[in-house]
């Protein structure tokens, strides 16, 4: 199968799906290696430059999306449920969990300097955060972000989160000290 044909097949499949399709599934159905599928997806993505749609991978699954710059016209057709806005406190707590997961509520509290019980509950209710086992030493419940969190942020994986380092000034010994704080 030549590359253009592979790309064409991927486009055809993604046109009929109602949920994201992983590279692995595509590779299996099309009898290609995952690398070939990834290369084809990247080619396709590039070829949509300037179009009204684009391809996006969220949590490993690919789908067609309308282009963000066309949101105004698309909104006239798509009446999605009202998305709740997150408060500043919720966003900051979410940031700590995203970078320190799995993490206990006590540790998030320590970093934030405030009690985060109510905010954590909100994040769990909204499906952005979920329980993830217990801390062996303390028995405290650990929390991690969900795939819905990735979807809301438009991220393919947690690796796509911006690096924390640039937000921290370059100080001698800072890393050590930070580690001693979060360990």
């Amino acid at each position, binding site marked *: 199968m030549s590359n253009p044909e592979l790309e064409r097949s991927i486009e055809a499949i*993604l*046109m*009929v*799906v*109602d949920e994201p399709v992983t590279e692995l599934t595509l590779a299996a159905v099309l009898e290609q290696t995952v690398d070939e599928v990834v290369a084809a997806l990247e080619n396709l993505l590039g070829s949509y430059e300037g179009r009204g749609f*684009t391809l*996006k991978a969220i949590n490993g699954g690919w*789908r*067609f*999306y*309308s*282009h*963000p*710059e066309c*949101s105004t016209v*698309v909104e006239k057709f*798509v009446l*999605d449920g009202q*998305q*709740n806005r*997150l*408060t*500043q*406190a*919720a*966003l*900051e707590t*979410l*940031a*700590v969990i*995203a*970078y320190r997961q799995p993490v206990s509520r006590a540790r998030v509290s320590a*970093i*934030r*300097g*405030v*009690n985060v*019980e*109510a*905010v954590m*509950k*909100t994040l769990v*209710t*909204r*499906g952005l955060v979920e329980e993830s086992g217990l801390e062996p030493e303390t028995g405290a419940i650990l929390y991690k972000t969900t795939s819905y969190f990735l*979807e*809301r*942020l*438009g*991220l393919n994986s947690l690796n796509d989160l*911006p690096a*924390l380092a640039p*937000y*921290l000034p370059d*100080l001698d010994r*800072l890393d050590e*000290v*930070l580690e*001693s*704080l979060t360990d």
Partner: protein
Amino acid sequence: MDIESQSGDAIATIESSPFNVHLDNFDGPFDLLLQLISRHKMDITEVSLSIVTDEFIAFIRALEASGEGWRLDQATEFLVIAATLLDLKAARLLPSGEIEDEEDLALLEARDILFARLLQYRAFKEIAATFAARIEAADKSFARVVALDPALSALLPEVLIGVGAPRFAAIAERVLTPKTPPVVAVEHLHTSLVSVTEESRRVVEALRKSRTLSFRNLCSDADSTLVIVARFLALLDLYRQGALRFEQVIALGELQISWTGSDEGEVAASDEFDIPVSLLDDEEIAEAVAETPELIEENETEGGENV
């Protein structure tokens, strides 16, 4: 705490610049510390611990006077700030570069840890802003979700629900649970709900008549704690609008409120506190609490004039 007297000069310089903290994002002691540092470009260690302490005690006392009593979360938050400030001050008093014994070293480390904690806190705050931007961007793209073509679905084998009845019920339960934070239902209570908007009108009326009133007097006819809380919230809102001033000449003293707004006409009362159906939930209490340090801000200015 005799170290405080040394910081008197520093406080004078604080007063000379307008102490104008935007509190919409305020959340927690690290926030306050960061704001003190960043807005005044000053060394955190120059803050007079005694003044900060007085302000917090006054604040807590005001709550007590209002009938609210000690609020554990606020008191502990104060302790965190006070302890942090104290540690920072202690660390600062060390002559730099002259580490003589292990105690000095421990203090230096304590200082490092505190600053690291602050920096870490600030880093997450900044990251949170990028989260908000990402969510906004992601909300602008819509996924293609289409039904399978009937021609294609005719090819499909028997549908597999994939879960048993108990799991199916669990899914229904999760999906049917409202996606907002649980709210305490109060319909079954017989207390009538207090409206901040309404109490705000009473507060304005009383202040226009008397010009200056103590918080105690202002609440003398309150028949429930809820009314006192509502009036307190109304005062905060009016303060935000610049319609009144708070004065507290001595720490732990009476909280005096002076009317500085217009003598006539409607004063727009914020209805943000008047939430239909329910009492404030935890998050909203947290937000309301976060706004209260405006009092402190005012006190600091007043205190400065008295020095």
